[in-house]
């Protein structure tokens, strides 16, 4: 149940938030693998990374970055958005074989 110490091979992905837009808006990750996502907020205001599909919720303060772990996930498309700017800050984590 408890997570093992972070292994060197845990894949790391980066998401950048700038002008209330996530980049890349489609983050491709491999299936059945736990991954670490570092979210960097380049804006002057805080934002909350939120995803009902991934069951994740994390405030990222202005000019800061924060990490979250997701997975292992089956193949599929998982939506995420910025809770404070849901119209512009939107994206998907796409879990697919090709990203291996």
């Amino acid at each position, binding site marked *: 149940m408890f997570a093992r110490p972070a292994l060197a091979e845990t894949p790391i992905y980066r998401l950048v938030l700038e002008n209330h837009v996530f980049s890349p808006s489609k983050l491709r990750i491999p299936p059945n693998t*736990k991954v670490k996502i570092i979210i960097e907020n380049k804006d002057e205001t805080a*934002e909350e990374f939120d995803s*009902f599909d991934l*069951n994740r919720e*994390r405030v990222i303060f202005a000019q800061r970055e924060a990490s*979250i*772990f997701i*997975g292992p996930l089956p193949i599929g498309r998982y939506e995420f958005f910025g809770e*404070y700017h849901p119209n512009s800050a939107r994206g998907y984590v796409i879990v697919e074989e090709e990203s291996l």
Partner: protein
Amino acid sequence: MISNTVVIFLRDLLPIFILFAYISNMPINTNLFSHFWKKLISVGTVVATLLIYVTTEYISEIFEGRGIELSSAAALIFVWLSLVLITVFTQFLTSGLRALLLGISLVLFTAIQSAEFLIYFGVFAQYSDNLPSILIACILGLGICISFTVLLRFILSELLLSGRSVFFYGLWFAFLAGQVSQVIGLLSQVDIIDDAPALFSLQALISNASEYGHALHALIGYESSPNVRLIGLYLITFLLPLLLKILVDRQDQSAYREGNQK
């Protein structure tokens, strides 16, 4: 803007209203609602909310960036434990201890939820043209929360008055289980426990993103796609106190009857 603020209002502040609806109906025999305690709790809540709001950015950096998740999980567990203790073992705790545990729980829970809302409010307060929309949304959100609480208080009071206290406590422990179950998401988010795939999905029926989803989440901890750990923790934290409460109440009733016969 308005609908988003209302949703955040429901997510962050509705659980506080629900908690107060239960507490105000509960026969826990404390002097907590005396003038002095009311003042102390109000001041404590304002101070704690501001303190958490001001320090959240720094808390998020501690424990290798896991500070918010760890402190929130610890607070939720403390609140669950305290409220279960004072509900189940009411007569075994002194009035002072009950008041203290209840007071700390109310302040902690209210402050954490309110501080999250203040962060959102702070972001939009920076743009003066957003203020009218936010104020309208806050009035709407407050109206929804107050209406919801009045209705819930009426239902809860009817349950107690009609002798259906098992249903009252069933709903109460479901609310508490829903709150403490969030620990699973918090800890798996920062890799302290492993994540698990969802067992089933009710997303098509009631989405967590919908207003109903938010209200049910606040009321009973509804999750549209729960995993086995969430379900396990929910069932334990719901059933264990409910069974204990039923057992303790039955023992009290039989002791009372025996005392009357003698």
